[in-house]
Structure formats: structure tokens, C-alpha cells
């Protein structure tokens, strides 16, 4: 009897050894297909043309996506058309989208706006009011344990700009140095572009650079979101107040759309969805723009970039 079990056992083992290679329990897929496969999807859904909203990389693309998605949903409802968020790594590219009509409306920095305005392809649509103000500051920040206590101490240090066209992230420092008779190249040992303000803040917090100039609105919002960052940073200089980053359109944009857009944005605080979107944007409400608010920036840009009036 025992011997029979032994034979049975040996047989089972052999069976197992030979059989375990076949009959996979996994689902089957055919990898090599000639023409039956799927192609890359068309980017636009059929039907109405989407409204294309370009957002400059004031903050990182993901943060931007999260922040602007409710707004886009609101606009899609108000305008009854799909809305598409366009992000580009640099302000220049956003400006280029607006200039060439690849984007219909843009959320840009004051520095980029005055550039487009001068070139004649941007005009103000509305401006956001944040904490009751339509202005903001550029902050010069250093790591909390840094030995630097004022702007002049940054000489010969590494410094981070956010974007070449940014006002708070570059233009102000350029202007400041120009006043001092310096240039970034002469004053700093090294400069880098982080292409967003939150990147600049993190670069200082992690002491990758010795200092950076950042948007006060972004700085405050980030500290609200991540309170432990505050202990690692120190503000050594605050700029005068500048015009807040505006919402802009191409001057040649269809007037109906332009008006509809303006109305939708200005009426956001009267709408539940709009209120939620404003909350996500940390914006009180949108107000009609006042071009004079950006005069300081225009002046600084003219001086720094050597514009001929």
C-alpha cells in the first residue's frame, strides 16, 4: 500500500514539473499587431471648439492644474464650451501662445504683460483682488539660518530667478541692481532660473541657492499650505507694491467672447461654483483693470530692458 502511494507521489511530482509551464492563468494580449491597433487620440474632443486658457508657470504645473481646474469648470459652464488648460514652462511660451492665437485667455505675470502690451498683443481683461488688494510685492528671501541680513549681503552669492519675464521673480531685482549700478552678472556669483516661484522658494529652503526673489502672493499661499517651510526661510527685503498678475487677452480676440469672458469672471463671486473656484484661486473676486497699476512695472522694464519711449 505504501509503495503505491510512493509511486503516486513520484507521478504527481513529475506531472507538476511538466505541466506547470503550460496553461498560464494570466490574461492574454497580442503585442504584435499590424493595422488593428489604436492610434494616438485626437487632442480635441469633437463638437464645440474649446476655450483655451493659458496659465503662466507662477507656480508648478500640478499646483496650477489643481488651482485653476475649478475656474476652468466654471468657465466651461458659463460659456457652454469645453475649456482647455494650457501650461508652458516659461512665460515667454505663454506669451507666444497668446500672441499667435493658440490661447484665448491668459493668466500672466505683470512683467510678461507689460512685454506683450508693448508688443501689442496683450490687453488687460480683469485683475484679481486678493486680500482686498490688487497689488503684490516681490520678496527677497534667504534660508532662515543664513548669515545674510540685507540685499547687499547677497553679493557674490548664488541667486535664483523664477522666469526671465517675471516681474517679482526677476525684473525687480534687475531694477534694484541697476539702481545700485550693478547687474546680476556682476553682483551675483551665479544665477539660475527655476521657472516657478514655488520652485524658487524650495530652492532657498533647501539652500540650493543663497537667495531668491519671489512673488509675495505665492510665498504666503505656500506658507499657508506648508507651515513648516516658514521656519526655514527669512525675508530680508520687501519691494514696493506692484500691479497684481492680470488676466489678459489678445486685443484682436472676438469681442463677444471677450465680453462673455469678462462678464463671467467679474460675476464669479455671485455664483456658487464661481465662489468655489475663487476660493481655490485664493482670489476675493475679479475686478475691472486699471492700466495705471502697472506703470511701475512698465517703468522698471523700460529702464532694465532699455526700451525707447
Amino acid at each position, binding site marked *: 500500500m505504501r*509503495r*503505491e502511494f510512493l509511486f503516486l507521489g513520484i507521478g504527481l511530482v513529475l506531472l507538476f*514539473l511538466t505541466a506547470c509551464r503550460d496553461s*498560464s492563468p*494570466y*490574461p*492574454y*494580449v*497580442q*503585442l*504584435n*499587431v*499590424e*493595422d*488593428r*491597433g*489604436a*492610434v*494616438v*487620440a485626437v487632442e480635441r474632443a469633437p463638437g464645440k471648439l474649446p476655450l483655451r486658457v493659458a496659465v503662466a508657470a507662477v507656480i*508648478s*504645473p*500640478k499646483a*496650477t*492644474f489643481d488651482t485653476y*481646474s475649478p475656474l476652468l469648470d466654471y468657465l466651461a459652464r458659463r460659456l457652454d464650451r469645453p475649456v482647455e*488648460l*494650457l*501650461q*508652458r*514652462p516659461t512665460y515667454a511660451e505663454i506669451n507666444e501662445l497668446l500672441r499667435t492665437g493658440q490661447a484665448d485667455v491668459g493668466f500672466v505675470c505683470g512683467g510678461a504683460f507689460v512685454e506683450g502690451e508693448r508688443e501689442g498683443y496683450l490687453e488687460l481683461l480683469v485683475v484679481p483682488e486678493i486680500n482686498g488688494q490688487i497689488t503684490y510685492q516681490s520678496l527677497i528671501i534667504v534660508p532662515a539660518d543664513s548669515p545674510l541680513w540685507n540685499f547687499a549681503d547677497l553679493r557674490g552669492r548664488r541667486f535664483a530667478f523664477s522666469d526671465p519675464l517675471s516681474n517679482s521673480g526677476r525684473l525687480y531685482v534687475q531694477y534694484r541692481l541697476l539702481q545700485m549700478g550693478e547687474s546680476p552678472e556682476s553682483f551675483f556669483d551665479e544665477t539660475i532660473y527655476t521657472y516657478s516661484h514655488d520652485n524658487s522658494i524650495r530652492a532657498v529652503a533647501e539652500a540650493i541657492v543663497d537667495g531668491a526673489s519671489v512673488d509675495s502672493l505665492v510665498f504666503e499661499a505656500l506658507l499657508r499650505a506648508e507651515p513648516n517651510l516658514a521656519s526655514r526661510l527669512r525675508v530680508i527685503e520687501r519691494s514696493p507694491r506692484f500691479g497684481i498678475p492680470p488676466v489678459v487677452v489678445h486685443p484682436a480676440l472676438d469681442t463677444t467672447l471677450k465680453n462673455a469672458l469678462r462678464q463671467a469672471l467679474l460675476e464669479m463671486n455671485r455664483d456658487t461654483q464661481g465662489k468655489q473656484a475663487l476660493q481655490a484661486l485664493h482670489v476675493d473676486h475679479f475686478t475691472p483693470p486699471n492700466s495705471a497699476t502697472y506703470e511701475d512695472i512698465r517703468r522698471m522694464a523700460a529702464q532694465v530692458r532699455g526700451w525707447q519711449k
Partner: protein
Amino acid sequence: MNAAERTASARWRRWGRRLWRWITGISIRYKLLGMVLATILLLGLAVTVQVQVELASDLRQSLEERGIAITRDLAEDATDLILTQNIFGLNQELRATLETNPDVRYVFVLNPQGQPLAHSFPNRLPPDLLTANPLPADVPWQVQILNSDEGLITDVAAPIFEGKLGVVRLGLSHRRLEATVAEATRRLMLTTLAALGLGAVAVLLLTRILTRPIFDLLTATRAVSKGDLHLRPPVRMTDEVGELTAAFNTMTEDLARFRDELLRQNRQLAALNAVARAVSGARNLSEVLDAALRSALNALGCTAGWVVLREEGTDTPVIIAAQGLSEDFLSREVAPNIEPCRCLDILHAQSDWQLPILRQECPRLRRAADHHGPEACFDRHLSIPLVSHNQPLGVLNLALHTGQPFQAEQVELAGAIGRQVGVAVDAERQRRRLVAELARREVLRGQLLERIIAAQEEERRRIARELHDEAGQALTSLMVGLRLLEREVDTPETLLHRTAELRQMTDRILENLHRLAMDLRPASLDHVGLVAALRQYVDTYSRQHHLKVQFEAVGLEGERLPPDVETALYRIVQEALTNVARHARASRVGVLLERRGDRLVAIVEDDGIGFLPETVAEKDGRLGLFGMRERAEMLGGTLSIESTPGKGTTIFVEVKHAHSHLSGR
């Protein structure tokens, strides 16, 4: 269990038994080889399977982890690219991923609607993949193993920006993993094969070492079974086989010793048998000794020898038989006044005198050497004592050549032969004595017969004389008295006197006749039995011979014995009392008749002058004694006489007695 199952089970068992027989029949070398190889093979297979399973599992795990890491990195990187609509960058990223990771078979990105944004396939994205491995919401990644036309694929799905931007899907081919496992398996199999080879060689060498002593033992065992006890397999190791070999050698040695001993004893028995056969065929002492000497010479490998016996009575040692000795030697040595060999005395002088000894200085042999006789070639002899009933009878001497070896074994055999011959000699002598005794008894019997006839004649004469002298005279007197009575009819007073005289005379005559009849055979023996008859006889005897006789019978009152027993005992007592009256000059005689168990004892003792039983004169009392003994022996009994001069005589008769007549009545 039904019939078919039972049949099947029986078949299984039959096959099992056949297999078992086959397995157990294989040489131990191949059994060991099989065991070791099977062990190595099993171990190798087990390790291979184990490694295969574990390696595959580990590699799959690591592949999966790598896939997850790559996919999540890709999802992270893709986020900004998608958000900034950098599809080219996305494609570049996918291509870079594909190129830098050889295991990655494909990678593609789906938008939240499940439509492909970018993929790494040269042409089109296989539609099967779109639906495979669907990613549930709020899951950081999902792994699904797929079976494809290119083998197994680990498909990893990771959400881009929490799924808001779609999914990255990465496919990792198992080919390299399987190749690695296959390579490892191949190496393990090669190692196992090498181990099998080494194991086989090692086992063959080892079994050669192990089985060599066993084969040696086998050879030795076969040799032993054929009767060759000289082979001794060498003890090569001190393990069990070594012990077995040592034990085997001990056993073989013991066997050899026992066999030699057996053969030796057999030779001795054969020799003794030959001696016994030779001796038993002999008819007289001389022939016995001749045969014994011849057999002893044969058995012990000697050519010459002689036997010396103590003569009966004188104890003088005499050469009584000889073999292989010259006439000169014998005539010289049997001559009187020649110095005999003292071997018999020397032999008996030693403490263990029943064992043979070697005599180096035999005067007989020395004299033979001096005379340059043919016996000069002997320089010593073996003296074998001839013993019977622990008594030395003589010696059997075997002459030994100068330098002839003589072993202990032969000495022992010689001793045995000596004892046997001694017994034979003793028996022969005994026989001769018995024959002489028989002859003597025959003579006595003849004399007794003569005596009986003479006694009968004497008895007849006595009766005739008594009848003539006494009864005749008395009857004549009676006749005369009667004649006188006729004459004296007329004288009544004389007649009365005469009648009284005649009656007295008649009484005397009657008494004399009665005595006569009693002497011939007591009628009372037939009528009143032994005890009463003897008592009557003893009374008469006592009165006749004026002897005080005390008669006593114990345990026989009122009992009748068989007539022959009664007659024999009556006659023996009668003869004994007659002898006492004739020779003893006794004053008192005691007769005792007693039953002792199943025996009857009759004792007649007197306080007479006594005698030496051996010196009884032939014609006189000896025949009487002989007659008494004859009567006792006829009844299967014995008669003994104890007598010392001056101390009286006791005759003691004992016969067997059955109770037939007591119980028969």
C-alpha cells in the same frame, strides 16, 4: 473493496514483491551506487526546483518593484509634460525609458478617457493592452501579469497626477528573467551532473574498499564449505566487517582445531577399534597379547615391541609376547638370571603411573646394541602400562628408532590402547580362572555323585543291617515269644507275663521302625511343614546326641513353603547338625529359621572347635559342605560358612522365597 479492486491490489502487491526481489538481488555495490546517485539526483532536483521557484519569484518581485518605480517616475515626469501639452517631450520620455531599461517591452500613456496619448510601439498600440490591467481609482499602482505572444509580461499601471491626467502603462518582459532562471537551472543541472559523476566514482571506489573484505569473506566461506580451512581473509578495517572477518577467522581456526581434534579422536577410535577387533578374535591370552601388540604397533607406527606381564601369584615380570624382535634377542632376554628391564617398576614408581612413559636406558636394548643385533637401531622404548580395575597388570613396550619422533597425541593413544589391552588381559585371565573354577566344581560334582551313590549304598546297608540286626532280631524274639506263648497257653500267669513282654518288644520294634523311617524322610515334613518337622528333628537330635539345641522360627508360624524349599532347608539344617554332632564337639547349638522380607534365612551356629573353611579335607566334610551349597544354589540362594578354629562355626543360608504358598491357600 470489490473483486476487481482486490485483483488490482493483488497485482500491485505481486509487482511490488517482484520489484523488491529484483532490488534486493542487486549487488551491494550497485545498491550503494543507486542510493548515492538517487540521493544526489533528488537533492539536485530539489535544489534546482527550489532555486527555480525562488529565483523566479525573487526576480519577478524585483522586476515588479522596478516596474513600479519606473512607472511612477514616468507618471511623475509625465504630469508636467501633459500639463504643458508637451507630447513630444512625453514621447521622448517614453523612448528614453524604453531604451534605458532593457526589460521594458512597451510603455504608453492613456488620457483619463482611456485614449492613448503616447506610446512606444512602432506603429499602433495593440488594442488588447487598452483594456488589460484597468486601474481602479485611488490606487497608487496596479500590477498585472499578462500572457502575450512574446511570453509573460508584467504590466504596471500608475495614475498620472492622481489619475486626473490619465495612466502610464509599462510592460516588462519576462524574457530576461526566464533566461536568467533557465541559465541558473542549467548550471544547477550541470553541477548536479558533475556531482553525479563524482558521486559515482566515489561510490565505486568506496564500495570497492567496503566490499572487498566482504568478497574476501565470501571466497573464504566458499573455501570453508569445500573443506579448506586454511584460508584467512585479512582484517582490513576495524569496523563491523572487520569484526566479522576477525570472528570468521577465529571460527575457522576453531573449526580447524575441532576438525583436527575430531580426526585425531577418530584415528584413536579407529586404532582402538582395530585393537579391540584383533583382541576379540583371540582365543587365549597369548593370542590376545599377540593381537594387541600387532595392533598397537600398527596404530602407533612402530615395528617392534614386547609385552611384559606380572605372573599371577609370583608377580614376576615375564616377557609374554613379542613382535618384530629377533630370536637372538628373545632367547637372550628370556634367559634366567639376566638383568630385566625395570620399566614396569619405574612406570609404577611415578605418580601418574597409568600414563605411558619413554624409557631411554633400557638394558635389553643396550644389550641388543652391544651384541650388534638387528635391534641395535632402537635406542629407547615407549612403556605403555596395561591397566585393569586400576591395577597394573604389565607393560607393553614399543621400541623406537633412534630419532623417531613421538608426539603427545600418540602417547595418549598408546595410553588408551594400554587400558584396552589391560582390560582384555584381565578378562582373559578372569575367563581362565572361571574355567578352572568350573573344572574344579565339575570334579566336586562327580565326587558328590559318587558320594551320593555311596551314601545310598551305605544307607541301604544301614537299613538292611538295622532291619536285620534290630527289626530281624526283635521280630525273631517276637516269634520266639509267640512260640513260647503257644506253649504257655495252659499257664495263665506266665501267659500274662509273656504277653506283656511281647507288647514291650513290639513297642521297641515299632519305635525302631519309626526312627528308621524318620531318618529316611520325615513324614512330618509332608504333614506338618518345615518348622514343625525341624522342631521334631531337633528334639530327637538333642536327645540322641545329648546336645542342648535351641530352635527358633521367626515369621514363619503356620506357613507352608514350596516343597523343594522345605526339603532343601530341612536337609541343609539336618546336614549341618549332623556335622556338628560328628566334628564340632560343641556343647550348644542354635538353629534359627527366619523370614526376612522375601528371603528365608537359616542359621546354624555352634560353640564348637571350629575350622578353617579352606582346609576342610576333601573326602570328609568338604563334600557335605559342597552338598549343602549345591542345595542352596539350586534354589537360587547362597550358603556361607564363617568359622575360626576355637571360636565355633556359623552356617548362613539365604534363599529367595515367593509368598505363593501363603497366599495360594
